[in-house]
């Protein structure tokens, strides 16, 4: 069974501020922690100011949940080659993100997305940090 893996990251905190976000990243997400979501993509909301990826993946108890993972805006994603049809419903994806600060909220901030089927990845390279 796929599990959410909570990884406590002691250093390399996400220090940037959400200059263009309509909410505060640091206030919304626990930027000192990471979670790993291993599941299937159920929706790709490609939009501004930020896109969202919805993934059906298990929580820490193993129960399937619908997670909303906040991603970059369309401009920043386009620069990295991500288009509206880059991700498709049903794609198996592995996402590393910052969890919500609110207990029980199935929400995260995108750090890295990987699609094992073809090796597509986003995150970890220059310009591939949600800002």
């Amino acid at each position, binding site marked *: 069974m796929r599990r959410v893996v909570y990884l406590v990251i002691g250093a390399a905190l996400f220090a940037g*501020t959400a*200059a263009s976000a309509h909410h505060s990243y640091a*206030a919304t997400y626990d930027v000192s922690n990471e979670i790993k979501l291993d599941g299937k993509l159920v929706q790709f909301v490609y939009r501004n100011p930020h896109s969202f990826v919805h993934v059906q993946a298990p929580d820490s108890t193993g129960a399937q949940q619908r997670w*909303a993972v906040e991603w970059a805006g369309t401009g920043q994603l386009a620069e990295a080659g991500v288009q509206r049809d880059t991700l498709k419903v049903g794609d198996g994806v592995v996402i590393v993100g910052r969890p*919500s600060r609110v207990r029980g*909220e199935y*929400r*995260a901030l995108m750090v890295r997305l990987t699609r094992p089927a073809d090796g597509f990845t986003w995150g970890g390279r220059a310009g591939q940090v949600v800002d």
Partner: protein
Amino acid sequence: MDNGFFRIGGRLLLAAAAICISIPALFAQGGPARTLIPPDIAGEWRLENSEDDTTAQPPLGDYTGIPFNEAGRLRSDTTAESIWGTPEYQCRPHSAPHQWRGLGGARILKEQDPLTRDVKAYHIQFMRSLDRPVFMDGRPHPPAWAPHTWTGFSTGEWVGNTLKITTTHLKDGYLKRGGPQTSDMYAMTEFLTRHGDVLSIITVIDDPLYLDEPYVHSTTYAYDPTASVAHEVCNSSAFAENGGTNRHWVPHFLPGENNARVEWLKDENWFPPEAALGGVKSVYPEYRTTLNGSAKVDTLRVPSSKSGFAIDKRIADQSPRDGQVHVLPVQGNIYMLVADGTNVAVSVGTEGVAVVNTASAQMSDKLLAAINQLANATVTPPAANNCFGATCAGTWGWSSPYINSVIASPAPAKPIRYIFNTSAAPEHVGGNEKLATSGFFPRGGGFGAAVANVGRGAAIVAHENVLNRMASPGPKQTAPPASAQPTDTYFDELHKLPNYFNGEAVVVYHAPAANTDGDSLVFFRRSEVIAAGNVFSTVSYPVIDVEKGGTIQGVIDGLNKIIDLAVPEYRAQGGTWVIPSRGRVSDTADVASYRNMVTMMRDRIQDLKGKGMTVAQVKAARPTLDFDGRYGATTGPWTTDMFVEAVYRTLQERK
């Protein structure tokens, strides 16, 4: 003395300097005479990030320089930033205190009178905003029962070369991004001064519910004709941001749960944690003496200023207990009549009048007079003649439309056809008899005249539990006469009028186990207005009559039902209007704000009860502290203690 001391000292001095600059202007009486030609502030303006934390959010939990009181601090600590990802808030603009500080620049437009070329209004636009008019034509601010908006209602006047903008009717929001909250009752005063190509904006936020004195910040813009304010669109879906499958999810923290608020202090360990809590004394230079131990905060005296208005009066004015009936047009066919503080929704049209609730018996005569006056003025208004001669098309008249318009009297408006009772509460059914017997519902058709009482009186529609309670009110209570009791009851989850009324569908939804077991919501579908009854109030905690089947969860479900039915017009504002039992006309975001508050109270009391606390211990813990100034009461028919106890009891019974 280390660098840290100088750094906090500097921050405190900056805050104090801002206050010293602006407060005299805020409270100045008069000021320099207006120049003949005030400076032109119209154009494109570029934000200069010269002030502290102009665009970036402060660290979570950093309330330095904010004159928070205990309630403001608790509200901020327990409000989760992701509340802004909920469907009702996703498309909102920045809160008014932060609008000038949001990215994207500002555009100021002039609206001129074509005849005099006077500036009637300035219109201010930001990247994520609604158009914000600042009226310069001397109009008064709306009554307290008028809606609140994200940008509020603004009027301006020139004081010398400074444009002073006064804003009221604002929704709740935040002082800065990332935590510090406002109530929905604050006033905002801005001072715009142009110095060449620089525009200085001093903003004074006066929120006595959460601040012990007005909070002041400044923002600077540079004139830039090459700039153009960007436009941020919003096309959010219900689950776009917060995840999960509960569209009514209310993210929040329990008191003491939000450890994130002190995270930043781990990295800024030079900073005194107590100063980060804010408070009126901490914004004055004298506060520094408490940091080196030479003075105590409790005994420290500072020259703090007071709020410019009485907050209790401002809240009460939404629901004036003045023995009068006030009329506010809402939308489409619907008007809100405030009858001695209790709201009555009235549909007026060519088919007659429908009223939702009838206020108290003492107000019946004035209410009926107001309804008749409104109906006659709306449906059969005097009209000037626009045609001369006997061939003019028109209604059948005396001799010709011309003569008819001069000497004929217009027909009276149709009578009250329907009365809807959203509950059996005396303040909602007290006028039933008077209003119903003044009305007429054509039940008899061609046969009615032969049967007594058929076709007499307006139909009274209610959930059947309302009739049950009115017909059998209990020991030592007298049932109202039959003419005051519901004639058309329903027992299902909803009830539709069988035909359009005044050109629209009217649907009544049951709100089970809310304030009682008989609550209804009445939805006028074309006018886009919902009369919410006792499920929603903007002046008190929800009344939960446990003995009559009320529960806290039923109230929350009822509020969520309203939210499900309602649709905002644009940017989380307007659209479907909601008339509460008492208080101001509201929209989806206002109902969501109230729902959020009620949900937070439920969860807090549930948490305390789950720890084994008795109801007395829960009351003593003051779980409602941050909302008591807004919705609480220590006297009267519905006190904060009664609310807490009702929540406690109904949670217990749900176990």
